[in-house]
């Protein structure tokens, strides 16, 4: 379709910042207290990365299956059931999140890879920690209130950031990175168009994760048990 080149990013912005965060508030209200379970799951993921045996199949599998469940839930409960109301691309985002959930399951059940280098592990821990613990505080820092918090496993942005951390810790094949990175780009661009103060976070975290993955990709590690 030749007409697409005539569109700019702002042409696809269909909603206001107020509508976006009201949607998150209503969603939070509807799924509460799932946040508590999500928070505990997020802490378990951080614990898995922090463990010295992250490269073992069991630890890795726990982290990846938690992430898979988070992507599946966000795809269905957020994108398909709610975001699609204000964004016509919502069903496509839901599909992408479903695909990533399946990919993470495949990765969890497949052969384990190498362990992360020291710096990679620190970056992975930092990213996942920020996503699970610090990201929900952004709502308060922005003066939006508790009802608009974005929680790992409930909202897409912290889920994608935490996933980048785990993928880094697992030294995952680049194919597993594609959808989380794509979501960070799409959501970062949306937040920029909505003029949200912290819109720069998602692209920054993406660059950080990719850089850590590339810079230390040749680091040698002892074989996994």
């Amino acid at each position, binding site marked *: 379709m030749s007409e697409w080149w*005539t569109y700019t990013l702002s042409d696809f912005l*269909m909603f206001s910042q107020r509508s976006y965060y009201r949607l998150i508030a209503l969603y939070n209200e509807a799924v509460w207290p799932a946040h508590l379970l999500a928070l505990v799951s997020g802490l378990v993921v951080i614990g898995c990365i922090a463990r010295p045996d992250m490269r073992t199949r069991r630890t890795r599998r726990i982290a990846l299956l938690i992430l898979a469940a988070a992507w599946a839930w966000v795809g269905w409960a957020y994108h398909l059931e709610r975001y699609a109301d*204000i964004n016509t691309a919502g069903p496509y985002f839901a599909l992408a999140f479903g695909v990533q959930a399946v990919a993470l399951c495949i990765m969890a059940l497949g052969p384990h890879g190498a362990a992360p280098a020291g710096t990679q592990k620190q970056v992975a821990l930092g990213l996942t920690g920020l996503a699970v613990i610090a990201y929900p505080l952004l709502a308060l820092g922005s003066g939006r209130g508790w009802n608009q918090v974005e929680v790992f496993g409930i909202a897409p942005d912290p889920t994608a950031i935490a996933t980048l951390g785990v993928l880094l810790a697992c030294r995952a094949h680049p194919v597993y990175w594609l959808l989380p990175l794509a979501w960070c780009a799409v959501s970062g661009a949306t937040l920029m168009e909505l003029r949200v103060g912290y819109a720069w976070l998602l692209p920054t975290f993406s660059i950080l994760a990719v850089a850590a993955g590339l810079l230390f990709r040749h680091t040698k590690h002892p074989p996994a048990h």
Partner: protein
Amino acid sequence: MTPDSSRRRLLQSILAASSSLALPSLYAAPAPAPLLTRPIPSSGEQTPLIGLGSWITFNVGRDPQARAESLDVMRQFFAGGGRMVDSSPMYGSAQDVIGEAVQALKPPRLFSADKVWISGGARGVQQIETSRKLWRVPRFDLLQVHNLLSWEEHLNTLLAMKKEGRLRYVGITTSEGRRHGEIEKIMASQPIDFVQISYNALDREVEQRILPLARERRIGVIVNRPFRQGDLTQALAGKPLPGWAADIGCTSWAQALLKFIVSHPAVTCAIPATSSVAHVRENLLAGSGRIPDEALRKRIAQDAERFA
């Protein structure tokens, strides 16, 4: 009774009598000036100069509070004499929000303007029917090919609908200055009733060719994004209104910017979008009273450019 007290009572009664006569004329709020209209060139039907857009503002999903606020905006718009409401399948839940208001308010003089925005003619027919159901109207007054997407196929469909009496007017749209060359070609060659474009005191390219062509071809002009999606009013916020504003009855930059647009003789109406009842009132006022002449239009544009 002392002379003083009787005089006081006399004065009080005179004051009371005079106030009962004089106060209403002195202090009652003046009736709002009627919303000015302009004829649709192809039919002569009168249309108010100010319509209501729905891009972003009415896409509120299922949020009951925001839907109630949107209903209030539309209630105020119709109560103030507004008629044309414009939407698109590209605007998320906006069509359904409008439909809910149409069902609740039953505006007797609604002018429903929507768009078709999909690849392929057959899918366009389906999309129009979906849109009509969302709007809860028996038929649309105006359907426009949105951003010229698959315009040849959709224009055939819309012209056929008009011929069969299932549609009153046919149009095309663009925004942000896109594809003006193609817009001109369609205006020159196709029997359309309306063209929808972006135009404001700073983005005036359409004055060169599209607006004169619209007058020549007797095509109505609907103006979208009159405030550059709020950027213009935001840039001018807090800047003092020049003296000419009072001469044309403007109390805000938003009104001045709207008056600039609708004062162009080729423009049929402007469709500012808002989610605020106060703003819809303010916008409607811009469609009444004195309209700037050519000299004042130049000053408005110059001052807007200077301050923005």
